[in-house]
Protein backbone atom coordinates (compact mmCIF):
# COMPACT_ATOMS: atom_id res chain seq x y z
CA UNK A 1 0.00 0.00 0.00
CA UNK A 2 1.19 3.48 -0.81
CA UNK A 3 0.09 5.53 2.15
CA UNK A 4 0.78 8.75 4.02
CA UNK A 5 4.28 10.10 3.77
CA UNK A 6 5.43 7.42 1.35
CA UNK A 7 2.81 8.74 -1.07
CA UNK A 8 4.00 12.30 -0.51
CA UNK A 9 7.62 11.34 -1.12
CA UNK A 10 6.74 9.56 -4.35
CA UNK A 11 4.71 12.58 -5.44
CA UNK A 12 7.53 15.01 -4.69
CA UNK A 13 10.26 12.95 -6.36
CA UNK A 14 8.15 12.27 -9.44
CA UNK A 15 7.33 15.97 -9.73
CA UNK A 16 11.01 16.94 -9.62
CA UNK A 17 11.84 14.20 -12.08
CA UNK A 18 9.30 15.46 -14.60
CA UNK A 19 10.63 18.98 -14.26
CA UNK A 20 14.27 18.00 -14.64
CA UNK A 21 13.79 15.51 -17.45
CA UNK A 22 12.55 18.09 -19.91
CA UNK A 23 14.23 21.20 -18.51
CA UNK A 24 16.64 21.50 -21.43
CA UNK A 25 14.26 20.68 -24.26
CA UNK A 26 14.82 22.82 -27.38
CA UNK A 27 11.85 24.73 -28.78
CA UNK A 28 11.84 22.56 -31.90
CA UNK A 29 10.63 19.65 -29.80
CA UNK A 30 7.91 21.42 -27.84
CA UNK A 31 5.04 20.10 -29.90
CA UNK A 32 6.23 16.46 -30.12
CA UNK A 33 7.16 16.48 -26.44
CA UNK A 34 3.75 17.77 -25.46
CA UNK A 35 2.25 15.05 -27.57
CA UNK A 36 4.61 12.52 -26.01
CA UNK A 37 3.71 13.50 -22.47
CA UNK A 38 0.09 13.39 -23.56
CA UNK A 39 0.74 9.77 -24.53
CA UNK A 40 2.40 9.00 -21.20
CA UNK A 41 -0.65 10.01 -19.19
CA UNK A 42 -2.50 7.49 -21.33
CA UNK A 43 -1.45 5.17 -18.48
CA UNK A 44 -4.86 6.22 -17.16
CA UNK A 45 -5.97 3.25 -19.23
CA UNK A 46 -4.66 0.94 -16.52
CA UNK A 47 -6.73 2.75 -13.92
CA UNK A 48 -9.81 2.75 -16.09
CA UNK A 49 -9.43 -1.01 -16.60
CA UNK A 50 -9.18 -1.56 -12.85
CA UNK A 51 -12.21 0.67 -12.24
CA UNK A 52 -14.26 -1.18 -14.85
CA UNK A 53 -12.98 -4.52 -13.57
CA UNK A 54 -14.39 -3.76 -10.13
CA UNK A 55 -17.63 -2.21 -11.36
CA UNK A 56 -20.76 -3.91 -10.08
CA UNK A 57 -23.90 -1.94 -10.84
CA UNK A 58 -24.93 -1.08 -14.40
CA UNK A 59 -24.21 2.60 -13.82
CA UNK A 60 -20.68 1.77 -12.72
CA UNK A 61 -20.20 -0.46 -15.73
CA UNK A 62 -21.38 2.22 -18.16
CA UNK A 63 -19.11 4.86 -16.64
CA UNK A 64 -16.24 2.39 -16.50
CA UNK A 65 -16.79 1.43 -20.12
CA UNK A 66 -16.54 5.04 -21.22
CA UNK A 67 -13.50 5.47 -19.03
CA UNK A 68 -11.69 2.60 -20.77
CA UNK A 69 -12.86 3.81 -24.18
CA UNK A 70 -11.58 7.36 -23.60
CA UNK A 71 -8.35 6.15 -22.00
CA UNK A 72 -7.50 3.80 -24.85
CA UNK A 73 -8.10 6.64 -27.31
CA UNK A 74 -5.73 8.80 -25.27
CA UNK A 75 -3.03 6.13 -25.27
CA UNK A 76 -3.30 4.93 -28.87
CA UNK A 77 -3.94 8.34 -30.42
CA UNK A 78 -1.16 9.92 -28.39
CA UNK A 79 1.27 7.26 -29.52
CA UNK A 80 0.32 7.40 -33.20
CA UNK A 81 0.60 11.17 -33.58
CA UNK A 82 3.80 11.43 -31.54
CA UNK A 83 5.44 8.67 -33.53
CA UNK A 84 4.34 10.25 -36.79
CA UNK A 85 5.88 13.57 -35.83
CA UNK A 86 9.14 12.23 -34.45
CA UNK A 87 9.65 9.88 -37.36
CA UNK A 88 10.14 12.91 -39.57
CA UNK A 89 12.90 14.53 -37.55
CA UNK A 90 16.12 13.83 -39.38
CA UNK A 91 19.43 15.67 -39.66
CA UNK A 92 21.12 16.21 -43.02
CA UNK A 93 23.59 13.43 -42.20
CA UNK A 94 20.85 10.85 -41.70
CA UNK A 95 19.25 12.02 -44.92
CA UNK A 96 22.37 11.27 -46.90
CA UNK A 97 22.73 7.84 -45.38
CA UNK A 98 19.23 7.11 -46.51
Amino acid at each position, binding site marked *: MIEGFTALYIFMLAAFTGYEVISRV*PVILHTPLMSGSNFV*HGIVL*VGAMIALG*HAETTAEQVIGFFG*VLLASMNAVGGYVVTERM*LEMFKSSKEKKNG
Partner: protein
Amino acid sequence: MDNLIEAIYFVAAFLFIFGLKRMSSPSTARGGILWAGVGMMAATLVTFAIPGLENIALMLVAIIMGSVIAYVSGKRVAMTDMPQMIALYNGMGGGAAAAIAAVELVKYGEHSLVHMNLAVLGALIGAVSFSGSLIAFAKLQGWLRKAVNLPMMQLINLLLFSLTVVSGVYIGFVEPDATVIVLFFVLALVFGVMMTLPIGGADMPVVISLFNALTGLAVGLEGFVLNNAAMIIAGTVVGSAGTLLTQLMARAMNRPLTNVLFSSFGSSGGAGEEQVEGSLKPVEADDAGVMMAFADKVIIVPGYGMAVAQAQHKIWELSKQLIERGVTVKFAIHPVAGRMPGHMNVLLAEAGVPYDLIFDLDEINEDFTTCDVALVIGANDVVNPVARTNPDSPIYGMPILDADKSKNIIVIKRGTGAGFMTTRPACFTVTARTWRRSWYRASKAYNAHNCANQPGPVVDHYGPFCLCLQKQL
Protein backbone atom coordinates in the same frame (compact mmCIF):
# COMPACT_ATOMS: atom_id res chain seq x y z
CA MET B 1 1.71 -12.90 -9.22
CA ASP B 2 1.26 -9.64 -7.37
CA ASN B 3 5.00 -9.15 -7.38
CA LEU B 4 5.20 -9.72 -11.10
CA ILE B 5 2.47 -7.16 -11.72
CA GLU B 6 4.18 -4.63 -9.48
CA ALA B 7 7.50 -5.33 -11.20
CA ILE B 8 6.02 -4.67 -14.63
CA TYR B 9 4.46 -1.42 -13.41
CA PHE B 10 7.86 -0.45 -12.04
CA VAL B 11 9.52 -1.13 -15.39
CA ALA B 12 6.76 0.81 -17.16
CA ALA B 13 7.28 3.82 -14.90
CA PHE B 14 11.01 3.68 -15.64
CA LEU B 15 10.39 3.43 -19.39
CA PHE B 16 8.06 6.46 -19.33
CA ILE B 17 10.67 8.64 -17.65
CA PHE B 18 13.44 7.25 -19.85
CA GLY B 19 11.30 7.81 -22.95
CA LEU B 20 10.48 11.40 -22.00
CA LYS B 21 14.16 12.05 -21.38
CA ARG B 22 15.08 10.78 -24.83
CA MET B 23 12.21 12.72 -26.38
CA SER B 24 13.77 15.98 -25.23
CA SER B 25 16.65 15.76 -27.71
CA PRO B 26 16.15 15.64 -31.50
CA SER B 27 18.60 12.83 -32.24
CA THR B 28 17.16 10.40 -29.69
CA ALA B 29 13.51 11.49 -29.80
CA ARG B 30 12.33 8.72 -32.09
CA GLY B 31 13.66 6.05 -29.75
CA GLY B 32 12.02 7.80 -26.81
CA ILE B 33 8.46 7.32 -27.96
CA LEU B 34 9.16 3.69 -28.83
CA TRP B 35 10.42 2.95 -25.30
CA ALA B 36 7.45 4.71 -23.73
CA GLY B 37 5.22 2.69 -26.04
CA VAL B 38 6.77 -0.56 -24.86
CA GLY B 39 6.15 0.51 -21.26
CA MET B 40 2.51 1.29 -22.00
CA MET B 41 1.96 -2.01 -23.76
CA ALA B 42 3.49 -3.99 -20.90
CA ALA B 43 1.52 -2.12 -18.25
CA THR B 44 -1.76 -2.62 -20.12
CA LEU B 45 -1.21 -6.32 -20.72
CA VAL B 46 -0.21 -7.09 -17.15
CA THR B 47 -3.31 -5.30 -15.86
CA PHE B 48 -5.41 -8.10 -17.31
CA ALA B 49 -3.60 -10.43 -14.91
CA ILE B 50 -4.80 -8.60 -11.80
CA PRO B 51 -6.83 -11.15 -9.87
CA GLY B 52 -10.55 -10.54 -9.38
CA LEU B 53 -11.13 -8.31 -12.39
CA GLU B 54 -14.55 -8.71 -13.98
CA ASN B 55 -16.20 -7.30 -17.10
CA ILE B 56 -13.20 -8.41 -19.17
CA ALA B 57 -15.33 -8.70 -22.32
CA LEU B 58 -16.66 -5.17 -21.88
CA MET B 59 -13.11 -4.00 -21.30
CA LEU B 60 -11.85 -5.60 -24.50
CA VAL B 61 -14.67 -4.11 -26.54
CA ALA B 62 -13.93 -0.63 -25.17
CA ILE B 63 -10.19 -0.97 -25.77
CA ILE B 64 -10.60 -2.26 -29.31
CA MET B 65 -13.17 0.40 -30.19
CA GLY B 66 -11.09 3.22 -28.72
CA SER B 67 -7.86 1.97 -30.28
CA VAL B 68 -9.30 1.64 -33.76
CA ILE B 69 -10.94 5.07 -33.69
CA ALA B 70 -7.80 6.72 -32.34
CA TYR B 71 -5.45 4.82 -34.65
CA VAL B 72 -7.36 5.74 -37.78
CA SER B 73 -7.86 9.38 -36.81
CA GLY B 74 -4.25 9.68 -35.66
CA LYS B 75 -2.89 8.29 -38.92
CA ARG B 76 -5.13 10.48 -41.04
CA VAL B 77 -4.81 13.85 -39.36
CA ALA B 78 -2.84 16.42 -41.33
CA MET B 79 0.31 17.78 -39.72
CA THR B 80 -1.22 21.25 -39.72
CA ASP B 81 -4.07 19.98 -37.55
CA MET B 82 -1.79 18.33 -35.02
CA PRO B 83 -2.34 20.79 -32.14
CA GLN B 84 -6.08 20.25 -31.96
CA MET B 85 -5.63 16.50 -32.28
CA ILE B 86 -3.32 16.52 -29.26
CA ALA B 87 -5.95 18.56 -27.43
CA LEU B 88 -8.58 16.00 -28.32
CA TYR B 89 -6.59 12.97 -27.14
CA ASN B 90 -5.62 14.86 -24.03
CA GLY B 91 -9.27 15.59 -23.29
CA MET B 92 -9.98 11.87 -23.58
CA GLY B 93 -7.39 11.20 -20.89
CA GLY B 94 -8.96 13.79 -18.61
CA GLY B 95 -12.38 12.29 -19.20
CA ALA B 96 -11.05 8.84 -18.35
CA ALA B 97 -9.57 10.13 -15.08
CA ALA B 98 -12.92 11.69 -14.23
CA ALA B 99 -14.70 8.43 -15.08
CA ILE B 100 -12.40 6.48 -12.76
CA ALA B 101 -13.17 8.93 -10.00
CA ALA B 102 -16.89 8.65 -10.66
CA VAL B 103 -16.81 4.86 -10.31
CA GLU B 104 -14.72 5.04 -7.14
CA LEU B 105 -16.89 7.76 -5.58
CA VAL B 106 -20.07 5.80 -6.10
CA LYS B 107 -18.72 2.92 -4.02
CA TYR B 108 -17.45 5.12 -1.25
CA GLY B 109 -17.48 2.47 1.43
CA GLU B 110 -14.13 1.15 0.28
CA HIS B 111 -12.12 4.34 0.57
CA SER B 112 -10.65 6.38 3.39
CA LEU B 113 -11.37 10.08 3.83
CA VAL B 114 -8.05 11.04 2.25
CA HIS B 115 -8.64 8.85 -0.79
CA MET B 116 -12.18 10.19 -1.22
CA ASN B 117 -10.86 13.74 -1.34
CA LEU B 118 -8.04 12.83 -3.69
CA ALA B 119 -10.63 11.20 -5.96
CA VAL B 120 -12.77 14.34 -5.86
CA LEU B 121 -9.78 16.55 -6.67
CA GLY B 122 -8.75 14.28 -9.54
CA ALA B 123 -12.33 14.24 -10.80
CA LEU B 124 -12.52 18.03 -10.77
CA ILE B 125 -9.23 18.44 -12.65
CA GLY B 126 -9.99 15.63 -15.07
CA ALA B 127 -13.47 16.88 -15.91
CA VAL B 128 -12.28 20.46 -16.44
CA SER B 129 -9.48 19.18 -18.67
CA PHE B 130 -11.96 17.04 -20.60
CA SER B 131 -14.51 19.71 -21.48
CA GLY B 132 -11.87 22.43 -21.79
CA SER B 133 -9.83 20.37 -24.24
CA LEU B 134 -12.91 19.70 -26.35
CA ILE B 135 -13.52 23.45 -26.60
CA ALA B 136 -9.86 23.99 -27.47
CA PHE B 137 -10.21 21.38 -30.19
CA ALA B 138 -13.36 23.00 -31.57
CA LYS B 139 -11.67 26.38 -31.62
CA LEU B 140 -8.55 25.28 -33.46
CA GLN B 141 -10.59 23.14 -35.81
CA GLY B 142 -12.49 26.27 -36.77
CA TRP B 143 -15.84 25.11 -35.43
CA LEU B 144 -15.87 27.89 -32.89
CA ARG B 145 -14.51 30.98 -34.56
CA LYS B 146 -15.06 33.75 -32.10
CA ALA B 147 -13.75 34.19 -28.62
CA VAL B 148 -16.96 34.24 -26.61
CA ASN B 149 -16.88 36.88 -23.96
CA LEU B 150 -19.99 37.35 -21.92
CA PRO B 151 -20.22 40.32 -19.61
CA MET B 152 -19.10 39.43 -16.12
CA MET B 153 -17.52 36.27 -17.49
CA GLN B 154 -14.91 36.16 -14.77
CA LEU B 155 -17.49 36.62 -12.05
CA ILE B 156 -19.64 33.84 -13.50
CA ASN B 157 -16.62 31.58 -13.71
CA LEU B 158 -15.63 32.35 -10.14
CA LEU B 159 -19.14 31.52 -9.00
CA LEU B 160 -19.18 28.30 -11.01
CA PHE B 161 -15.82 27.30 -9.62
CA SER B 162 -16.90 27.98 -6.03
CA LEU B 163 -20.06 25.94 -6.48
CA THR B 164 -18.03 23.07 -7.93
CA VAL B 165 -15.61 23.16 -5.01
CA VAL B 166 -18.42 23.33 -2.46
CA SER B 167 -20.17 20.31 -3.95
CA GLY B 168 -16.82 18.53 -4.15
CA VAL B 169 -16.08 19.21 -0.50
CA TYR B 170 -19.54 17.94 0.41
CA ILE B 171 -18.85 14.67 -1.43
CA GLY B 172 -15.39 14.32 0.05
CA PHE B 173 -16.12 15.18 3.66
CA VAL B 174 -19.83 14.77 4.30
CA GLU B 175 -21.58 12.22 2.16
CA PRO B 176 -21.15 11.04 -1.41
CA ASP B 177 -24.78 11.47 -2.30
CA ALA B 178 -25.53 10.38 -5.89
CA THR B 179 -27.37 13.61 -6.78
CA VAL B 180 -24.54 15.74 -5.48
CA ILE B 181 -22.01 13.67 -7.43
CA VAL B 182 -23.92 14.23 -10.66
CA LEU B 183 -24.24 17.94 -9.88
CA PHE B 184 -20.53 18.11 -9.12
CA PHE B 185 -19.55 16.58 -12.46
CA VAL B 186 -21.95 18.77 -14.42
CA LEU B 187 -20.60 21.88 -12.71
CA ALA B 188 -16.99 20.85 -13.34
CA LEU B 189 -17.69 20.17 -17.02
CA VAL B 190 -19.49 23.48 -17.46
CA PHE B 191 -16.64 25.29 -15.72
CA GLY B 192 -14.14 23.73 -18.14
CA VAL B 193 -16.18 25.04 -21.08
CA MET B 194 -16.65 28.48 -19.59
CA MET B 195 -13.01 29.00 -18.70
CA THR B 196 -11.82 28.02 -22.20
CA LEU B 197 -14.43 29.92 -24.25
CA PRO B 198 -13.04 33.44 -23.79
CA ILE B 199 -9.48 32.44 -24.67
CA GLY B 200 -8.39 33.46 -28.16
CA GLY B 201 -6.91 31.20 -30.80
CA ALA B 202 -3.34 32.44 -30.47
CA ASP B 203 -3.24 31.51 -26.81
CA MET B 204 -4.72 28.08 -27.36
CA PRO B 205 -1.39 26.19 -27.43
CA VAL B 206 -0.55 27.38 -23.94
CA VAL B 207 -4.00 26.32 -22.78
CA ILE B 208 -3.69 22.89 -24.40
CA SER B 209 -0.34 22.44 -22.72
CA LEU B 210 -1.89 23.46 -19.42
CA PHE B 211 -4.72 20.96 -19.83
CA ASN B 212 -2.11 18.34 -20.67
CA ALA B 213 -0.39 19.02 -17.36
CA LEU B 214 -3.73 18.99 -15.54
CA THR B 215 -4.71 15.64 -17.02
CA GLY B 216 -1.35 14.28 -15.88
CA LEU B 217 -2.04 15.52 -12.38
CA ALA B 218 -5.55 14.06 -12.40
CA VAL B 219 -4.14 10.70 -13.50
CA GLY B 220 -1.59 10.85 -10.69
CA LEU B 221 -4.29 11.61 -8.12
CA GLU B 222 -6.48 8.75 -9.31
CA GLY B 223 -3.35 6.61 -9.10
CA PHE B 224 -3.24 7.31 -5.37
CA VAL B 225 -6.89 6.34 -5.04
CA LEU B 226 -6.35 3.05 -6.88
CA ASN B 227 -2.97 2.46 -5.26
CA ASN B 228 -1.32 2.12 -8.62
CA ALA B 229 2.33 3.20 -8.64
CA ALA B 230 2.65 3.38 -12.43
CA MET B 231 -0.25 5.83 -12.63
CA ILE B 232 1.07 7.91 -9.75
CA ILE B 233 4.54 8.25 -11.22
CA ALA B 234 3.59 8.69 -14.89
CA GLY B 235 0.79 11.11 -14.01
CA THR B 236 2.88 13.21 -11.66
CA VAL B 237 5.85 13.29 -14.04
CA VAL B 238 3.59 14.51 -16.85
CA GLY B 239 1.92 16.95 -14.49
CA SER B 240 5.18 18.67 -13.63
CA ALA B 241 6.79 18.31 -17.07
CA GLY B 242 3.61 19.73 -18.61
CA THR B 243 3.65 22.64 -16.19
CA LEU B 244 7.23 23.44 -17.16
CA LEU B 245 6.37 23.10 -20.84
CA THR B 246 3.42 25.45 -20.37
CA GLN B 247 5.71 28.01 -18.77
CA LEU B 248 8.26 27.65 -21.57
CA MET B 249 5.57 28.18 -24.19
CA ALA B 250 4.05 31.13 -22.39
CA ARG B 251 7.51 32.69 -22.10
CA ALA B 252 8.26 32.06 -25.77
CA MET B 253 5.06 33.88 -26.67
CA ASN B 254 5.70 36.60 -24.12
CA ARG B 255 2.30 35.93 -22.60
CA PRO B 256 2.28 35.39 -18.83
CA LEU B 257 -0.05 32.53 -17.95
CA THR B 258 -2.33 34.79 -15.93
CA ASN B 259 -2.87 36.96 -19.02
CA VAL B 260 -3.74 33.90 -21.06
CA LEU B 261 -6.31 32.68 -18.59
CA PHE B 262 -7.85 35.90 -17.39
CA SER B 263 -7.84 38.25 -20.35
CA SER B 264 -8.83 37.73 -23.90
CA PHE B 265 -6.27 38.41 -26.57
CA GLY B 266 -6.45 41.12 -29.15
CA SER B 267 -9.26 43.00 -27.52
CA SER B 268 -7.12 46.11 -27.68
CA GLY B 269 -7.11 47.42 -31.22
CA GLY B 270 -3.52 48.46 -31.74
CA ALA B 271 -3.64 49.40 -35.39
CA GLY B 272 -0.10 50.62 -35.37
CA GLU B 273 1.20 51.34 -38.80
CA GLU B 274 4.76 52.43 -38.86
CA GLN B 275 6.98 54.09 -41.33
CA VAL B 276 9.84 51.91 -42.37
CA GLU B 277 13.05 52.71 -44.16
CA GLY B 278 13.58 51.43 -47.65
CA SER B 279 11.31 51.14 -50.61
CA LEU B 280 8.45 48.74 -51.01
CA LYS B 281 7.82 47.28 -54.42
CA PRO B 282 6.25 44.24 -55.98
CA VAL B 283 8.85 41.81 -57.20
CA GLU B 284 8.67 39.56 -60.20
CA ALA B 285 9.32 35.94 -59.51
CA ASP B 286 12.31 35.97 -61.83
CA ASP B 287 13.90 38.81 -59.95
CA ALA B 288 13.29 37.16 -56.64
CA GLY B 289 14.93 33.99 -57.93
CA VAL B 290 17.95 35.79 -59.28
CA MET B 291 18.27 37.70 -56.06
CA MET B 292 18.35 34.50 -54.06
CA ALA B 293 20.49 32.55 -56.52
CA PHE B 294 23.30 35.09 -56.33
CA ALA B 295 23.05 35.63 -52.61
CA ASP B 296 25.56 34.25 -50.13
CA LYS B 297 23.06 33.67 -47.42
CA VAL B 298 19.30 33.27 -47.52
CA ILE B 299 17.16 32.96 -44.43
CA ILE B 300 13.67 31.61 -44.87
CA VAL B 301 11.06 32.66 -42.32
CA PRO B 302 8.06 30.37 -42.68
CA GLY B 303 4.70 31.02 -41.10
CA TYR B 304 1.48 29.14 -40.74
CA GLY B 305 0.24 30.54 -44.06
CA MET B 306 2.92 28.50 -45.81
CA ALA B 307 1.75 25.35 -44.10
CA VAL B 308 -1.90 25.98 -44.93
CA ALA B 309 -0.95 26.26 -48.58
CA GLN B 310 1.20 23.13 -48.29
CA ALA B 311 4.01 25.17 -49.78
CA GLN B 312 6.70 23.72 -47.50
CA HIS B 313 7.54 21.01 -50.02
CA LYS B 314 8.13 23.54 -52.77
CA ILE B 315 10.11 25.73 -50.43
CA TRP B 316 12.38 22.80 -49.63
CA GLU B 317 12.81 22.10 -53.37
CA LEU B 318 13.79 25.71 -53.85
CA SER B 319 16.17 25.51 -50.90
CA LYS B 320 17.84 22.39 -52.28
CA GLN B 321 18.51 24.16 -55.57
CA LEU B 322 19.95 27.13 -53.74
CA ILE B 323 22.13 24.87 -51.60
CA GLU B 324 23.44 23.17 -54.74
CA ARG B 325 24.47 26.57 -56.03
CA GLY B 326 26.46 27.11 -52.87
CA VAL B 327 24.05 29.44 -51.15
CA THR B 328 23.81 29.11 -47.38
CA VAL B 329 20.16 28.48 -46.61
CA LYS B 330 18.80 28.61 -43.09
CA PHE B 331 15.29 28.39 -41.72
CA ALA B 332 14.37 30.73 -38.92
CA ILE B 333 11.56 29.56 -36.69
CA HIS B 334 9.82 31.84 -34.29
CA PRO B 335 8.55 30.08 -31.17
CA VAL B 336 4.96 30.79 -32.15
CA ALA B 337 5.31 30.06 -35.86
CA GLY B 338 2.61 27.57 -36.67
CA ARG B 339 -0.06 26.93 -34.11
CA MET B 340 2.13 26.08 -31.17
CA PRO B 341 5.82 26.16 -30.28
CA GLY B 342 7.61 23.56 -32.35
CA HIS B 343 4.70 23.02 -34.72
CA MET B 344 6.52 24.64 -37.64
CA ASN B 345 9.48 22.34 -37.09
CA VAL B 346 7.16 19.39 -37.47
CA LEU B 347 5.73 20.83 -40.67
CA LEU B 348 9.17 21.47 -42.15
CA ALA B 349 10.30 18.02 -41.08
CA GLU B 350 7.31 16.63 -42.95
CA ALA B 351 8.60 18.29 -46.12
CA GLY B 352 12.03 16.75 -45.51
CA VAL B 353 13.96 19.74 -44.20
CA PRO B 354 16.78 18.43 -41.97
CA TYR B 355 16.57 19.81 -38.46
CA ASP B 356 20.14 21.11 -38.47
CA LEU B 357 19.14 23.76 -41.01
CA ILE B 358 16.42 25.00 -38.69
CA PHE B 359 17.22 27.59 -36.07
CA ASP B 360 15.47 29.12 -33.10
CA LEU B 361 14.96 32.81 -32.67
CA ASP B 362 17.87 33.15 -30.25
CA GLU B 363 20.23 31.21 -32.46
CA ILE B 364 19.56 33.04 -35.69
CA ASN B 365 18.60 36.61 -34.91
CA GLU B 366 22.18 37.90 -35.23
CA ASP B 367 22.49 36.25 -38.63
CA PHE B 368 19.94 38.53 -40.22
CA THR B 369 22.37 41.45 -40.27
CA THR B 370 24.71 39.46 -42.52
CA CYS B 371 22.03 37.88 -44.64
CA ASP B 372 21.38 38.90 -48.23
CA VAL B 373 17.79 37.83 -48.61
CA ALA B 374 15.19 37.10 -45.99
CA LEU B 375 12.29 35.22 -47.53
CA VAL B 376 9.23 35.68 -45.33
CA ILE B 377 6.52 33.34 -46.44
CA GLY B 378 3.11 33.29 -44.84
CA ALA B 379 4.42 34.87 -41.68
CA ASN B 380 3.34 38.15 -40.27
CA ASP B 381 3.33 38.88 -36.57
CA VAL B 382 6.63 37.13 -35.94
CA VAL B 383 8.59 39.62 -38.05
CA ASN B 384 6.52 42.68 -37.24
CA PRO B 385 8.78 45.37 -35.78
CA VAL B 386 5.77 46.95 -34.14
CA ALA B 387 6.42 44.44 -31.37
CA ARG B 388 9.59 46.38 -30.60
CA THR B 389 8.24 49.89 -30.87
CA ASN B 390 4.51 50.28 -30.39
CA PRO B 391 3.28 49.76 -26.82
CA ASP B 392 -0.34 49.84 -28.06
CA SER B 393 0.10 46.76 -30.19
CA PRO B 394 -1.18 43.48 -28.79
CA ILE B 395 2.11 41.85 -29.66
CA TYR B 396 4.22 44.56 -28.05
CA GLY B 397 7.14 43.06 -26.19
CA MET B 398 7.07 39.74 -27.98
CA PRO B 399 10.54 38.85 -29.23
CA ILE B 400 10.51 38.85 -33.03
CA LEU B 401 12.74 37.63 -35.81
CA ASP B 402 14.84 40.54 -37.04
CA ALA B 403 14.07 39.92 -40.70
CA ASP B 404 13.93 43.67 -41.21
CA LYS B 405 17.69 43.84 -40.58
CA SER B 406 18.63 41.85 -43.65
CA LYS B 407 19.60 43.53 -46.92
CA ASN B 408 16.56 42.40 -48.90
CA ILE B 409 13.29 41.08 -47.68
CA ILE B 410 10.87 39.18 -49.85
CA VAL B 411 7.43 38.81 -48.36
CA ILE B 412 4.93 36.36 -49.71
CA LYS B 413 1.46 36.58 -48.29
CA ARG B 414 -1.88 35.55 -49.57
CA GLY B 415 -3.70 38.68 -48.55
CA THR B 416 -3.45 41.97 -46.81
CA GLY B 417 -5.41 40.90 -43.78
CA ALA B 418 -4.36 40.97 -40.21
CA GLY B 419 -2.39 38.10 -38.73
CA PHE B 420 -3.57 35.40 -36.37
CA MET B 421 -2.74 37.67 -33.50
CA THR B 422 -4.92 40.37 -35.01
CA THR B 423 -2.25 42.87 -35.88
CA ARG B 424 -1.93 44.41 -39.28
CA PRO B 425 1.28 43.60 -41.06
CA ALA B 426 2.71 47.02 -40.41
CA CYS B 427 6.21 45.71 -40.90
CA PHE B 428 6.35 46.22 -44.59
CA THR B 429 3.56 48.63 -45.19
CA VAL B 430 3.50 52.32 -45.34
CA THR B 431 -0.26 52.50 -45.44
CA ALA B 432 -2.97 49.97 -45.94
CA ARG B 433 -3.68 51.47 -49.32
CA THR B 434 -0.14 50.79 -50.50
CA TRP B 435 -0.62 47.17 -49.56
CA ARG B 436 -3.72 46.86 -51.65
CA ARG B 437 -2.26 48.60 -54.65
CA SER B 438 0.85 46.49 -54.53
CA TRP B 439 -1.30 43.45 -54.14
CA TYR B 440 -2.89 43.97 -57.53
CA ARG B 441 0.42 44.65 -59.17
CA ALA B 442 2.03 41.72 -57.54
CA SER B 443 -0.71 39.29 -58.20
CA LYS B 444 1.08 37.81 -61.17
CA ALA B 445 4.47 37.74 -59.62
CA TYR B 446 4.35 34.91 -57.19
CA ASN B 447 6.07 32.14 -58.98
CA ALA B 448 9.45 32.27 -57.37
CA HIS B 449 10.43 28.81 -58.45
CA ASN B 450 10.87 29.59 -62.10
CA CYS B 451 13.51 32.04 -61.10
CA ALA B 452 15.79 29.19 -60.27
CA ASN B 453 15.43 28.22 -63.93
CA GLN B 454 13.41 25.15 -63.18
CA PRO B 455 9.92 24.37 -64.34
CA GLY B 456 7.27 23.96 -61.74
CA PRO B 457 5.65 26.42 -59.48
CA VAL B 458 6.72 27.28 -56.00
CA VAL B 459 3.83 29.13 -54.63
CA ASP B 460 1.22 29.04 -57.34
CA HIS B 461 -1.47 27.59 -55.17
CA TYR B 462 -0.35 29.89 -52.48
CA GLY B 463 -0.05 33.37 -53.97
CA PRO B 464 -1.02 35.95 -54.85
CA PHE B 465 1.22 38.19 -52.88
CA CYS B 466 4.87 38.77 -53.27
CA LEU B 467 6.54 41.93 -52.19
CA CYS B 468 10.09 42.93 -51.88
CA LEU B 469 11.45 45.47 -49.52
CA GLN B 470 14.86 46.63 -50.58
CA LYS B 471 16.82 48.51 -48.04
CA GLN B 472 18.61 51.51 -49.35
CA LEU B 473 22.07 50.91 -48.11
